[in-house]
């Protein structure tokens, strides 16, 4: 499994945002996306996930290989933590949610309705969902928002295990995660220039 992006251009709201992005991430590696606000990190991740079509260029993985985690984490307030995870596991044909629950330290919160979680607890749940997708390519948009230091540590450990198992990850973040096996890509130089009028 390898993620190879070749000369990709993407648009947001009809306006080209990025042009000529190329990179490759091998199994076991992580790529950190950096760039100032509005650089196009979210746009790039959504394009990689196949949610929006690329203007040009190729992406080597299909929508069937990726797991996306964005600001909105698909958590239903009325369902408990375990039910939320169980649902996503079932959708992805997995069965066992116990490892995901313990990996993100959610055991004590298991039977709490998700609507009653604090911002960081909810985010932990959103990240635990990644583990039940069974997907190899993780696309993460600012995953550590609202997490305290201990949870960031947990999360880094989860990522490291994922990489060690042959997974790979693309992570947009503004803070330093302290991941060892990670390249960094700054998106600022890929800002789309003005082309001809359509």
């Amino acid at each position, binding site marked *: 499994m390898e993620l190879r992006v070749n000369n990709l251009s993407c648009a947001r*709201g*009809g*306006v080209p945002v990025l042009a000529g992005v190329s990179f490759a991430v091998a199994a076991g590696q992580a790529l950190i996306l950096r760039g100032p606000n509005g650089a196009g990190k979210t746009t790039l991740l959504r394009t990689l996930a196949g949610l929006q079509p690329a203007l040009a260029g190729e992406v080597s993985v299909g929508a069937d290989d990726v797991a996306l985690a964005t600001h909105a984490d698909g958590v239903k307030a009325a369902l408990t933590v375990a039910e939320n995870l169980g649902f996503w596991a079932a959708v992805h044909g997995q069965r066992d949610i116990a490892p995901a629950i313990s990996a993100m330290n959610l055991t004590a919160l298991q039977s709490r309705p998700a609507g009653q979680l604090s911002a960081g607890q909810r985010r932990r749940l959103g990240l635990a969902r990644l583990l039940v997708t069974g997907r190899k390519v993780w696309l993460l948009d600012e995953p550590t928002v609202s997490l305290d230091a201990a949870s960031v540590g947990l999360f880094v450990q989860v990522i490291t295990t994922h990489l060690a198992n042959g997974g790979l990850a693309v992570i947009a973040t503004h803070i330093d995660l302290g991941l060892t096996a990670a390249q960094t890509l700054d998106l600022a130089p890929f800002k789309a220039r003005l082309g001809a*009028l*359509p």
Partner: protein
Amino acid sequence: MSVWEYANPKRFMDTSARVLPWLAALAALCLITGLIWGFFFTPDDFRQGSTVRIIYLHVPAAMMAINAWVMMLVASLIWLIRRHHVSALAARAAAPVGLTFTLIALITGAFWGQPMWGTWWAWDPRLTSFLILFLFYLGYIALWSAIEDSDAAADLTSVLCMVGSVFALLSRYAVNFWNQGLHQGASLSLDKEENVADVFWVPLLVCIAGFVLLFVTLVLIRTRTEIRARRLQHLLLRERMQ
């Protein structure tokens, strides 16, 4: 040269700019001739009196209301299949024109109904299905204006137009099933016995031609506006991206 050349916005703008004045003049000519002829130089009908003159507005408007929807359907299909922006914008441009024609047909019909049937409105199948067509136009326009991203709006309204066409046909059938009406059947067909007399018929044909031309003119003008608006929007967006 293939027809699709005109799907290029630039070519479309050039060509339409050249054609438009002629079309507009022709439309005005037909309408003025037809309406003046119809209103002042035809005899009163023996049953309907002078109210028959409403026909010169009513029938062409009613015909064009339906044809405008058909044109939107075709343009939507072209957009979905070949993704030419001009056709999506033409569909968008035609909708308010079609809506207006529908409204004219409804209002002139109501004014005609008052003396003829003694009521402004009756739930006759033809009238009912026109009202439903009016609703379809409203929904289509509302969807266009509710979505900001113009490509997404074009996609969604095209799908709506296709599904809507099927259901509009179904409704027409259902309404017929539901009520047998008062409204006149088709009397323009050439093979029928009870065709309206020639005195009415010829000016009516001129009016119909005028309405067709008017429709084409308006749609062209509005499509040009839409193209310009789209360019403007792109420029603005771009300026913001700096």
